[in-house]
């Protein structure tokens, strides 16, 4: 069903103007935002510097809780990075046309969140200054890293995913860059001319481009799945009670998609509001995304149920100890998590009115991500604090340094995004205009231009 509110009647120039509105010179609000985010990031950098000069004792970590908020952050941000792949690649392959206005936002989010995620293992290191021991390269020590370690798999997977998602983002942006090139002047023109690589939009280029996009989409989905599976293996391959679980990889992938999709919706709402893209991001999109979120939330609930249920039934003492400890000490977070990830989305998103209500979607999607952050915390911390040896059970409370760096991660992500928005086309305008062009059936002498928009 073609939605009538898609602006079929607009001229291409007008559409370009509207969709590239984010590239207009920034206002005071933008500068204020940048200043604020920059301050938060600077504070986080100070906190990190403090940690490097003082030592890891400035964190709340101890024995046995040797991983804390940094790894929670790592898993969370890797999870967010699944948004772009999910929205862009999967929906591209399944030819869901409503994806078009949001795919750029989602892809950019992938790149930035995986980059932020990639920083956390480094921040987390006890000796950050010898991080290069982790890189496989020929060196004068004659020793290579241990590829049997899941952390190396992580490093490989995240590198692959960062490169892959940057390529994917760039690939999707290539025709748009040409458009921006043609509309810009000065240093921007020089930059975009460089980035557009001389794209002209010949029929041949478009043909290859389409095939390449499809191929990349097909390639990046397994990478995305592997990335979060590997993150899950960091935990699942250990002998830590509560971690050593075969459900973890699919559970993590589902959780990642859940938080990713929710984050994309949140981002859609913000971008829609900030750049007045109401006509391009319509309630239809929210409706569709809402349905997707509903399905994933159901899947997540299923996975969570399976995990707890099997542990409860088997009742292996120490495993169950971890779960009872979790529900005892962390009752409130646990309930928030269940509400945010499962109960609220599943009940609310059944209703079309909720799905099409921007305000309700904002609340729900934010809660989903709060829930996902808590979920990661509840996976990592209770298990570690209640490990196999009861005599050395411990507890964990993040310190101000860890909280500052977490805040800086969010701010840094937002900062990158704010710059990206001002520099690059935020809406995939070729894709949107393609849909626009195709929604009109054009009788030509030699061929009939098919209206594929109607297929939706």
């Amino acid at each position, binding site marked *: 069903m073609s939605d009538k509110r898609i602006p079929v009647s607009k001229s291409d120039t007008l559409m370009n103007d509207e969709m590239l509105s984010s590239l207009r010179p920034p206002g005071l609000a933008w500068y204020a935002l940048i200043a604020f985010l920059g301050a938060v990031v600077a504070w986080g950098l100070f906190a990190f510097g403090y940690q490097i000069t003082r*030592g890891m*004792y400035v964190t709340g*970590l101890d*024995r*046995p809780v040797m991983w804390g908020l940094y790894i929670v952050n790592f898993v969370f941000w890797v999870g967010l990075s699944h948004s772009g792949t999910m929205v862009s690649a999967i929906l591209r392959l399944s030819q869901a046309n409503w994806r078009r206005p949001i795919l750029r936002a989602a892809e950019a989010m992938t790149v930035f969140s995986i980059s932020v995620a990639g920083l956390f293992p480094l921040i987390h290191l*006890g000796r950050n200054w010898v991080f290069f021991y982790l890189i496989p390269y020929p060196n004068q020590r004659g020793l290579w890293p*241990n590829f049997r370690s899941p952390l190396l798999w992580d490093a490989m997977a995240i590198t692959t995913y960062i490169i892959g998602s940057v390529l994917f983002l760039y690939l999707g942006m290539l025709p748009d860059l040409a458009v921006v090139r043609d509309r810009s002047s000065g240093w921007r023109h020089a930059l975009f001319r460089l980035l557009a690589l001389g794209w002209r939009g010949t029929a041949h280029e478009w043909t290859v481009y389409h095939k390449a996009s499809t191929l990349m989409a097909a390639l990046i989905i397994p990478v995305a799945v592997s990335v979060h599976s590997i993150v899950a293996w960091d935990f699942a391959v250990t*002998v830590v009670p509560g971690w050593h679980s075969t459900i973890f990889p699919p559970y993590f992938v589902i959780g990642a998609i859940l938080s990713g999709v929710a984050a994309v919706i949140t981002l859609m709402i913000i971008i829609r509001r900030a750049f007045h893209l109401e006509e391009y991001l319509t309630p239809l999109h929210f409706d569709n995304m809402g349905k997707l979120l509903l399905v994933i939330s159901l899947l997540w609930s299923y996975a969570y149920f399976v995990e707890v249920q099997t542990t409860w039934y088997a009742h292996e003492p120490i495993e169950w100890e971890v779960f009872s400890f979790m529900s005892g000490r962390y009752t409130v977070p646990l309930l928030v998590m269940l509400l945010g990830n499962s109960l609220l989305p599943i009940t609310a998103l059944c209703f079309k009115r909720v799905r099409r209500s921007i305000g309700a979607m904002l609340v729900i999607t934010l809660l989903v991500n709060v829930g996902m952050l808590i979920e990661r915390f509840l996976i990592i911390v209770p298990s570690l604090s209640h490990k196999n*040896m009861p005599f050395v059970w*411990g507890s964990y409370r993040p310190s101000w340094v860890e909280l500052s760096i977490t805040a800086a991660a969010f701010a840094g992500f937002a900062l990158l995004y704010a710059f990206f928005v001002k520099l690059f086309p935020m809406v995939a305008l070729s894709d949107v205009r393609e849909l626009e062009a195709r929604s009109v059936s054009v009788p030509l002498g030699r061929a009939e231009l098919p209206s594929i928009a109607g297929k939706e």
Partner: protein
Amino acid sequence: MEKLTSPYKWGMVIDLDRCTGCGACVVACQAENNVAICDKKEIAEGRNMHWLRIERFWVGEYPDVRVRFLPVMCQHCHDAPCEPVCPVYASYHNPDGLNGQVYNRCVGTRYCGNNCPYAVRVFNFYQHEWPKPLENQLSPDITVRPRGVMEKCSFCIQRIRRVKETAKGEGRLIRDGEVQPACAQTCPAEALTFGNMADPESRAARLARSPRGFQLLEQLGTHPSVIYLKGGGREHVG
């Protein structure tokens, strides 16, 4: 590929029936291995650096109450969960069956610490210092670990190295009882016996065959080199 074999498989037998929980081994270990002195705050934060601890469990209620002591040091598992997870080979398996920790190499991911089910790995959260002239007590045979690295019991590798060097110089193998970690050496009740498990006639190997023997968290399949012998415990209540 070099051969990774050795005539030694070091192991320890801890007789819980002998262990009185006195703590001599804890101090011996601390003295031998330059283990940092941790103040009250540090221990309150859960950052005690002891490589060897004596766990004390209360069982039952007054008056039918009993105490169980369990000295826990690195179990030097043959299938050590800490080793493969280290991305930089800082934790590795020594040909003698020991679980090695290389401080230069350690970058401080603390993954090994998480994956050690025995929680015997300690992390240098602090840069520890010894107020002068207390630093004189530091043994030159073993390094002082900087902050940011993991450390743990090595079965007093420096002692093993010295004896190995001597034995090699004399062209023979290490004799049973020739090398002892500091904890086993000092244990008043002789609850700790260290030896070469590859030699079936060594004292440790003979003790390890005791029907009282068990391994800690055996179900995890880590195959520790430390064999515990069950304590008698109290049969009666009065």
